[in-house]
């Protein structure tokens, strides 16, 4: 894989996000002692592994021009299902498999409804969101603590990196998901078709791409990632509770936007959501280190960032549209290419 590091309109948002991460982390390091350590950095990943996974799955949906509002509810639902099943004494790996299957089926069902009946994704996934939350209530209204040996072992397992600093299994899973997503987006026909649909669904259809199948698949991926995120989150919390992560779908969407995934579809890099998550993670850490600020300041700062990035996206889209007109003239050959169109021969 060759990296092309020239800044252009497509990757400028990614670069601004990276720059922001460096700036924020730098600011934190200057302001607070103990901020600039490997463990604080690793903790960003450990605390947000589930969000990275969920946001990355969601990114595929957003790139096609759709949305999936059900992700947070699915994560909570999976946590409740896991906890309930483990309480029944079921094997941990079987529980995980069941969770993933639930996620896949849930996502596929949403995708099918959206595609087959041409329903708006907002409506379908909003219904999915309530459904998943409601279903968790149905199982239990209490928070269930997980005492399963496998789960606690995975949860406590530390992978040492750089001395005694460590990351968790979840971080490895999250990074693997991002790596696979990056690969799929760039190097598979499916990935490119996702972008094509985001560019123009009608054109994609006329070009002979299997638009219905891809649409269903994209929501299936989002469902799968939510379930996987749910499992990872369960490792993290070691409890199942239907009120977990209220409103987290918005954090996931925000991560995508800050990571340069265009909400209108068709543009974005799949590392983006990871960077977006890290960005808001750093803000959260700074607020924590500050100590006196209420945790709501994280939300305010993220909101402000979102606003900035949407503005930036807007500017880029407008620039792109304007460039069309200008380039019309620019691409035509000038004197040197003149032999291509010798007017006298017309």
């Amino acid at each position: 894989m060759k990296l092309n590091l020239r800044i252009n309109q497509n990757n400028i948002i990614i670069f601004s996000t990276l720059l922001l991460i460096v700036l924020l982390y730098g600011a934190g390091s200057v302001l607070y002692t103990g901020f600039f350590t490997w463990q604080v950095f690793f903790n960003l990943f450990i605390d947000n592994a589930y969000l990275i996974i969920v946001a990355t799955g969601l990114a595929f949906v957003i790139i096609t021009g759709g949305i999936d509002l059900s992700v947070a509810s699915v994560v909570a639902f999976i946590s409740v299902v896991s906890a309930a099943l483990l309480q029944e004494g079921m094997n941990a790996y079987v529980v995980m498999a069941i969770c993933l299957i639930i996620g896949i089926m849930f996502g596929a069902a949403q995708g099918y409804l959206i595609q087959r009946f041409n329903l708006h994704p907002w409506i379908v996934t909003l219904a999915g969101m309530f459904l998943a939350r409601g279903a968790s209530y149905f199982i239990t209204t209490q928070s269930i603590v997980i005492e399963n040996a496998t789960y606690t072992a995975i949860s406590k397992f530390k992978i040492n990196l750089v001395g005694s600093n460590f990351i968790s299994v979840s971080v490895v899973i999250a990074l693997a998901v991002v790596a696979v997503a990056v690969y799929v987006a760039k190097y598979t026909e499916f990935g490119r078709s996702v972008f094509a649909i985001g560019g123009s669904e009608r054109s994609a259809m006329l070009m002979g791409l299997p638009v219905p199948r891809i649409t269903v698949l994209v929501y299936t991926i989002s469902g799968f990632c939510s379930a996987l995120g749910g499992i990872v989150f369960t490792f993290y919390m070691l409890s199942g509770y239907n009120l977990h992560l209220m409103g987290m779908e918005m954090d996931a969407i925000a991560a995508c936007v800050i990571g340069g995934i265009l909400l209108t579809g068709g543009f974005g890099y799949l590392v983006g959501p990871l960077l977006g998550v890290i960005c808001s993670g750093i803000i959260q850490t700074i607020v924590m280190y500050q100590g006196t600020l209420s945790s709501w300041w994280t939300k305010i700062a993220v909101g402000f960032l979102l606003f900035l990035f949407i503005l930036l996206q807007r500017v880029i889209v407008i620039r792109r549209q304007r460039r069309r007109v200008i380039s019309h003239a620019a691409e035509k050959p000038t004197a040197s290419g003149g032999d291509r169109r010798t007017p006298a021969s017309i």
Partner: protein
Amino acid sequence: MNGNVLLKMDNVSKTFPGVKALSGVSFTLRKGEVHALMGENGAGKSTLIKVLTGVHAMDKGEVQLKGRTITARSPQEAQTLGISTVYQEINLCPNLSVAENLYIGRVPKRRGSIDWKRMNEDSERLLKRLNLNLDVKQPLSGFSVAIQQMVAIARAVDMSSGVLILDEPTSSLDNQEVQQLFDVMRKLRDEGMGIVFVTHFLDQVYDITDRITILRNGALVGEYETSKLSKSSLVSNMIGREWREEDEHRKKEKSYSSEVMMSTQALTRVGSVKPVSLSVRKGEVVGLAGLLGSGRSEFANLIFGIDQSDSGILTLGSETFQSMNPKKAIRKGVGFCPEDRKVAGIVGELTIRENIVLALQAKKGIFNYIPLKKQQEIARKFIDLLRIKTPSMEQRIDNLSGGNQQKVILARWLATDPSLLILDEPTRGIDVGSKGEIRKLILDLAKSGLSILIISSELQEMIECADRIVVLRDRMQVGEISGDHMTETNIMKMIAEGGGTHEQYSQTGS
């Protein structure tokens, strides 16, 4: 029936809400022929193609490919059957690179992953065959409509096996590009492929096609051999009444007064238009000639303020402006019918009526709401005047045929009652009959005191309408001709030689 038949459509019908788009149409395509599909705007040509390729389901009828009955339920299935199509609306994804647009759906792979290097190389090679030298890694949206059209054609040609369908592929191309396309088509034809070709340019029909099928109002008129069908009977069959090719007629009477309506002094935009100075008098029709990319559309964009000029002065009436924007231009009585209707023109979700009154409403300001009754009156007037074919003015505009959409855009600007009207390719995609009507309309408007700046690739059209023609070349104003000197040969010569005034642009090798 001989064994040469490749594709046979039998008794095909299709109804849209309120429109019988096709009724019992039959169509036969043979191996090794280029077959023109002709008909007025809204005759059902595109619908026939879409029904064949599975974009729409047909209500009734049968399709046979090489003797086997087929039903394509999606363009994808049609492609697998060997039918590849360039649809009338450009069907590419603007956010993907040129190379991807050429190969998506059939990308070259290495060990299961997309082989970008090979894809880019293949793309370059493929485009070279059409004499295009592009940076194929750039997103498609950065290229002009003409290039996009060529890319769409290149994709379809490369994918085709058996049947190639081209629905008005040449609408944005200049002659040179058309000839290149024709060369490719001839080659494919000689290899035994069947090609369906839709166009409103009669010359192209006689240049390339072997056979013609004519549709009228969704019904089949007949199938003819091109060499045995005269131009006038072709058009007569299309429009359903007698038509005779008119002699070359030029605008005779002077309709303009001495009052200058619009003038520019050295209006410039770096990289797109070199200084242009011209003036248009009240009631005068001025043509802007030049090849694609010569700066004619870019100049029009400057006047209307779509692009900002870097230097120079624009005068409208008695006011001078350093900079312009579309809103101001509309207020000052400028109307602009843009070249690229899909991007800059129609608002697909709105109805025909809303599209027609759009610019007028903008001119009046949003607080000065035009009453519905008045809107309907205006819409009715222009639907009749331009013969826009639609069951109702409340249809969504993207349900109209391509040519009829173009007419709606024209109507939008005529409705603003402008004092200066800029028409960039006003008759592109419009059928022969309506072209004449629009020409007449332009002359009538000029007579009533409207100033018109017209840009058209069809020189004959400009010669017939204009009092004066200004020639651009390589984004530079190179000369001006008027009166009896306005002939196609003279204009072409000037485009080629730069009017003899700019030696550095004189041609080598011709």
